[in-house]
């Protein structure tokens, strides 16, 4: 049997832990979640000297308190899973600070290896470290390494195997936290050790320490014992009163300061530095990039660059996806006869799956860009510069990235935007951000705006678009302010944040990062969005026309065709319906709409007739030759028939749409939407827009009898709406604002659910609807009062 070692990899953010993890495990990584929480658990396997070494990547943390999910996850893993070793990655240039975490692992007693990363940088900065003495004083093996280049990795694995073979015991160190605290620690430890109620997983002294630090997780556990609980509580209360009276500090602060004292005692002897404050390259870059005037300008350029890169780079892959799904649609049309199954496959399944996969290139490149900004260190500067503004709205400097990606510059996508909120650490700031990003003007809303602007504001297109961008920011920021002062109320979280040195990100790291996050999106979102789009398809399809209605339309169609076939000009040319079908096929193939039918079966006169009809349709009379003149009358009649049949088909679609769940909903909703001026046709379009906002345009097209409306070419619908009763600039603007704010599309709602909870996803639908309704209501009613919108 192979011998197995389990190690937990830990370290401060920016210590190079991820780089080290990638360097050790390569591509053999496995990603899951820690049980019950959304914190990612990465693990990998490496074989070394006959051992199978499993490496579990703990979340990057500065400390091991119970105040952040990541820290709880990290310490619970060490306590409950009892890895054989903890390897702590520390930045060799900043030992004092990185040892703060290492010291807390020592307090837990787990066997520890210190991996001193980036020793090359430290050396270049004139920092000399006595590794041997450090190892003795800290009582842990020390391995210098450079994770970026892979230097020291195999020595680290050697040390892991060596240390494992010596099988060191779990042994908490004797760190002194001052007389008062030490005495209290002894008392509490004694109580815990005496008690039978407490399991022995945790070292008693560590538990006692956590009690004095006011650690809720541990205190909660201890309070369950009816005898020991109150005793411990009393000791804690006493010591707090005592230290507050004598030192004006709580025990937690005293303990923290003593940890640093312990660390400084070691590093003073081990680390020699030439200069206290060095001006390094990073500081020089910051002189420009965080400069009062140049800094914000650069930031706008860089954010704009990230945004453009994401959409530019994903443009071509998105086209490939589109082509692929067009091909699938054609295949279904070819293989499946017309009917409910075909409709389900095309409008439900393919459009649904296409909806998910269509976002994949965008998400991939967005994550790539974000990983670049994060790994290079620039993201922290963005937060630093914008904090003062966003703080007022209860957001964080880092919220801006999510808002830009969602369409803050107009055109974007809220799905990657919601995923981009992962860089926010505080849960309330994060949820506030992900609830407001759907207000930004994503790419799918643009066709709706374009159509309405063309119809009613064609003179000020650019100005209106710019105004809409500002409006979406205003709504998002004020919505955040509302959320943060009501449901997401909470104290401003401490901002203290590191500005990590600028570093060139490694390509390997960027690729692994962006791909694994994208893959998770595909896996998780795919199935749910598919299910939802089938449901929505059903809503737009069932129950459909009644039998009588279907029959009625059939009768009208047949009557038209019969009249056509009986016309004197036609009788000699077309004998029956089959001939008409053949003519249709030739006509369409000549228009280039379908494949050319087999040549040898076609009677030449039908071909000539179709030819003439095409010329007539294009009003291309100059090209009518002698053969054509014979067919002018027949051709005209044929074109008339086609037009009339198209009208019937349109009425059929309209009637069918009215007789669906969505249509029924649209009618019922009129009661509510009357103050906004929306009648059932707009309502149906808005219901359909839940699938994707651009569907609003095509559904309005059907509702206003236009047939298929290409979202890219909305001219004819604009024309129609301009002349439709009840439509005027005020109505159009009301609909624009409503579209901007109402429910996020399905894909976004699902992403919100994945990133927060079912409850927040549901809340986002209600919240956005309320805001949209209120805004549209005010706009329309004020507009009417001002005498706008008559016409």
């Amino acid at each position, binding site marked *: 049997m192979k011998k197995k070692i389990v190690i937990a990899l830990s370290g401060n953010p920016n210590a190079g832990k991820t780089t080290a993890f990638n360097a050790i495990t390569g591509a053999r990584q496995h990603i899951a979640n820690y049980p019950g929480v959304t914190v990612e658990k990465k693990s990998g396997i490496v074989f070394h000297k006959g051992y199978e070494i499993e490496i579990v990547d703990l979340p990057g943390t500065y400390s091991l308190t119970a105040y952040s999910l990541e820290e709880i996850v990290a310490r619970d893993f060490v306590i409950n899973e009892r890895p054989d070793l903890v390897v702590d990655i520390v930045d060799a240039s900043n030992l004092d600070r990185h040892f703060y975490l290492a010291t807390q692992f020592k307090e837990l007693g787990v066997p520890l290896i210190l991996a001193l990363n980036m020793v090359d940088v430290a050396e270049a900065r004139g920092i000399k470290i006595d590794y041997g003495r450090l190892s003795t004083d800290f009582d842990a093996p020390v391995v210098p390494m450079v994770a970026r280049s892979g230097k020291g990795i195999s020595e680290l694995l050697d040390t892991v195997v060596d240390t494992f073979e010596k099988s060191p015991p779990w042994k908490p160190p004797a760190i002194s936290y001052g007389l008062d605290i030490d005495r209290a620690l002894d008392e509490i430890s004694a109580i815990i050790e005496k008690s039978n109620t407490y399991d022995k997983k945790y070292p008693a002294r560590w538990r006692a320490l956590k009690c004095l630090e006011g650690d809720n997780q541990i205190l909660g556990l201890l309070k369950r014992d009816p005898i020991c609980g109150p005793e411990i509580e009393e000791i804690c209360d006493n010591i707090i009163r005592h230290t507050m009276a004598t030192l004006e500090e709580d025990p937690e602060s005293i303990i923290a300061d003593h940890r640093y004292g312990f660390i400084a005692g070691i590093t003073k002897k081990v680390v020699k530095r030439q200069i206290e404050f060095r001006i390094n390259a990073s500081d020089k870059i910051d002189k420009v990039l965080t400069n009062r005037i140049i800094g914000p300008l650069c930031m706008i350029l860089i954010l704009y660059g990230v945004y453009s890169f994401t959409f530019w780079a994903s443009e071509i892959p998105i086209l490939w996806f589109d082509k692929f799904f067009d091909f699938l649609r054609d295949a279904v049309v070819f293989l499946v006869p017309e009917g409910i199954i075909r409709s389900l496959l095309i409008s439900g399944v393919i459009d649904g799956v296409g909806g998910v996969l269509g976002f994949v290139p965008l998400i991939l490149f967005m994550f790539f860009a974000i990983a670049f900004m994060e790994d290079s260190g620039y993201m922290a500067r963005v937060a*630093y510069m914008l904090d003062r503004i966003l703080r007022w709205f209860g957001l964080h400097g880092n919220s801006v990235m999510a808002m830009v990606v969602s369409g803050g510059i107009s055109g974007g996508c809220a799905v990657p935007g919601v995923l981009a909120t992962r860089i926010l650490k505080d849960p309330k700031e994060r949820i506030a951000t992900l609830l407001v990003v759907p207000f930004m003007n994503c790419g799918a809303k643009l066709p709706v705006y374009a159509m309405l602007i063309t119809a009613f504001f064609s003179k000020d297109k650019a100005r209106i678009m710019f105004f809409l961008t500002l409006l979406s920011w205003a709504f998002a920021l004020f919505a955040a302010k509302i959320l943060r002062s009501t449901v997401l109320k909470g104290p401003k979280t*401490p*901002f203290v944040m590191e500005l*990590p*040195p600028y570093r060139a990100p490694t390509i390997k790291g960027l690729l692994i990062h962006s791909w694994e996050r994208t893959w998770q999106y595909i896996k998780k979102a795919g199935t749910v969005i598919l299910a939802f789009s089938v449901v929505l398809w059903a809503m737009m399809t069932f129950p459909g026309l009644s039998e009588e209605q279907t029959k009625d339309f059939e009768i009208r169609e047949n009557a038209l065709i019969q009249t056509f076939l009986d016309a004197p000009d036609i009788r000699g040319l077309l004998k029956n319906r089959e001939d008409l079908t053949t003519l249709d096929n030739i006509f369409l193939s000549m228009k280039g709409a379908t494949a050319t039918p087999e040549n040898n079966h076609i009677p030449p006169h039908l071909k000539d007739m179709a030819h003439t009809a095409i010329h007539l349709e294009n009003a291309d009379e100059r090209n009518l030759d002698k053969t054509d003149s014979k067919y002018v009358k027949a051709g005209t009649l044929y074109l008339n028939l086609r037009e009339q049949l198209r009208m019937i088909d349109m009425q059929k679609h309209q009637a069918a749409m009215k007789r669906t769940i969505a249509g029924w909903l649209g009618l019922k909703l009129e009661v509510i939407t009357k103050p906004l001026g929306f009648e059932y046709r707009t309502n149906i379009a808005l219901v359909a827009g839940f699938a994707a906002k651009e569907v609003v345009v095509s559904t309005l097209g059907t509702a206003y009898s236009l047939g298929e409306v290409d979202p890219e070419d909305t001219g004819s619908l604009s024309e129609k709406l301009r002349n439709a009763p009840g439509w005027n600039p005020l109505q159009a603007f009301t609909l624009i604002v409503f579209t901007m704010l109402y429910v996020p599309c399905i894909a976004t709602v699902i992403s919100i659910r994945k990133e927060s909870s079912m409850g927040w996803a549901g809340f986002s639908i209600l919240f956005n609807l309320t805001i949209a309704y209120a805004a549209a209501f005010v706009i329309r009613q004020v507009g009417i009062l001002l005498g706008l919108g008559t016409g």
Partner: protein
Amino acid sequence: MKKVIRMREMLKHEKGILKKISAMGDMGRRIREMGLFPGASIQIQGRAPLKDPVAIKIRDFVLTLRNNEADSIFIEVDLPDNDQRL
């Protein structure tokens, strides 16, 4: 002349030794775990375009804090005799 002042009052590029962190609870914990502790020598690196937050250098790393957080950190600085902050 040596004097202990609040970090918010410090000027750009000014150096000093951290004497006391008066913040407790969430803020106190966060300030300490990010690497600030009594005895650390720090230097003001700069301020954000809107004068808040402030960036400080400790050894070889840079931290940023909001002004209200900097208010709870006391630094011993060497002030020239004509300095108004004396």
